[in-house]
């Protein structure tokens, strides 16, 4: 169990609890009441901490080293899954995964960024930062889904599109731009869910859908708080302030009508009960795909255009 800096009070209480339990196991002293007292304190500490998370703390939770990633959710949600590879042009991007899964007898195309769970895996997955071929692979799979009338679910978790030399040579900007336009007019239902980090164009590149949802402890913005701090405050020290100013939490994004809903996480974050999180996610996916299926493709496309076209604040 990895504790984040603001979770220290919980960590300390848990350590006390462990000690008491060990003493209790010795059998010489009855620790039952002391144990339940600490347990109560832990619950209270959790309520205090998790009910008033700051933007930066949500960012930390979204990057928690034990947080579940795309392929974990797919494996839990689908009774069958065939992973598909490659953009048919340059390569197979390991930071962007996808394939056809089955949920309750229904085929669903899953696409999402994938982060690695250990040092080697993180490198293999390029830290969830896709190259242009990742976005083109995603588009290929979306077009495949459209052809066979399979609804699409994207799971978004990226610190950004990869800012590399080859990425620029192969048109990172063009690849993302094309996805934005193509996703707007996909004839099948599209549900996009931010499951971790939703950083800028790299996230948006698979983020145009009929329903865009965020897990409770995720963030979605135009720039990471660190980069924003470095640019606007000329220092890396203002990431907490930047996170507040950017209003990048699910709650804010929903309030601004820039997303369509928030999916609650287990207390303490998705990683504290990944199986429960996966089961909640599955229910949400089924619910939204079922309701979207009631519309014609034309109706969905019109609503999609209408929704994204109305985003923006200005004086008229």
């Amino acid at each position, binding site marked *: 169990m990895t504790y984040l800096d603001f979770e220290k009070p919980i960590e300390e209480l848990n350590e006390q609890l462990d000690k008491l339990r060990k003493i209790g196991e010795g059998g010489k002293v009855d620790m039952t009441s002391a144990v339940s007292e600490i347990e109560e304190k832990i619950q209270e500490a959790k309520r205090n901490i998790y009910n008033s998370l700051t933007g930066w703390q949500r960012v930390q939770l979204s990057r928690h080293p034990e947080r579940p990633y795309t392929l974990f959710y797919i494996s839990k949600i689908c009774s069958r899954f065939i992973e598909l590879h490659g953009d048919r042009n340059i390569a197979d991007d390991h930071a962007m995964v996808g394939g056809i899964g089955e949920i309750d007898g229904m085929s669903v195309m899953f696409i999402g960024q994938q982060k690695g769970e250990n040092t080697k895996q993180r490198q293999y997955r390029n830290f969830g930062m896709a190259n242009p071929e990742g976005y083109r692979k995603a588009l290929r799979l979306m077009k495949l889904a459209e052809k066979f009338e399979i609804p699409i679910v994207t799971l978004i978790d990226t610190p950004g599109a990869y800012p590399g030399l080859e990425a620029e040579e192969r048109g990172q900007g063009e690849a993302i731009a094309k996805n934005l336009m193509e996703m707007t007019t996909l004839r099948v239902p599209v549900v996009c869910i931010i499951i971790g980090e939703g950083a800028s164009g790299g996230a*948006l590149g698979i983020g145009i859908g009929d329903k865009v949802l965020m897990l409770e402890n995720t963030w979605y*913005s135009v720039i990471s708080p660190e980069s924003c701090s470095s640019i606007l405050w000329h220092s890396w020290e203002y990431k907490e302030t930047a996170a507040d100013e950017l209003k990048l939490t699910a709650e804010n994004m929903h309030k601004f009508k820039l997303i369509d809903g928030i999916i609650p996480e287990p207390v303490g974050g998705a990683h504290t009960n990944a199986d429960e999180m996966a089961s909640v996610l599955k229910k949400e996916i089924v619910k939204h795909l079922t309701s979207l299926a009631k519309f014609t493709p034309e109706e969905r496309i019109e609503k999609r255009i209408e929704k994204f076209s109305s985003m923006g604040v200005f004086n008229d």
Partner: protein
Amino acid sequence: MAWFKRDKQGITTSTEEKLEVPDGVWWQCSSCKKTIPTGDLIENKYVCPQCNYHARINSNEYFNIIYDEGSVKKLFEDLEPKDFLGFVDLKPYKDRLAETKKKVNVSEALTVGSGKVNGHKLVTCCMNFNFIGGSMGSVVGERISRAIDYCIQKKYPLLVISKSGGARMMESAFSLMQMAKTSAKLTQLAKAKLPYISLMTDPTTGGVTASYAMLGDINIAEPNALIGFAGPRVIKETIKKDLPKGFQRSEFLLEHGFLDFIVDRKDLKQRLTDVIELLMHKNEK
């Protein structure tokens, strides 16, 4: 998605970026250092006669270059930016907007004009780099959106002249969603079978590159313009290597297949005319 430039003193935000075209009598080329009378520069469409350096200009200058004299009118000028988030960094966004408005002669980072190019109707959305680094705020997206509606209604082709550091961080996710918004609106223009020409000028980076700038039926650029998704500094820090000469310049993009052609500013009006006539030949008859 940075719209700033770093120098030895730290970071100079582009709000302080000066238009490279001075009010004075003389102009010095920032590329070859030759000094020429400002009148000659304007005569030469703000291009250095010695080295072909294309000085950074804004919508008013572009409209003079491409539109037939007296034919252009500006649209949607009444749309104004709003500090919806109450964003404060080293200074409040509200103050930044007020200061910028005082300093520059454009109303936002993008101006829409409608007029005639050698007799052909054309709507142009032209970005202004002197307005907070040509950053993509809500007004930029909304003006493009309305320009597209206008094109569809009037059956006019669309030209977007991009010149941008990318996102407007002070509008946070609203800025990000302008990428989605403009791309969504472009599907409607495409459905109406109206040409969309994207002209990229120095610099075109970040969210603008990753949305409407790269989505033209015809993608073109001025010579030697910086065009990319990630900024060169970010890439250099990521790969920890020096970048090759000419990297992310127009000629590099042409070589890698992302541009249809590069156009000198002196030829811009005629090339636009050719493209419009050739693509819209059916409408002409």
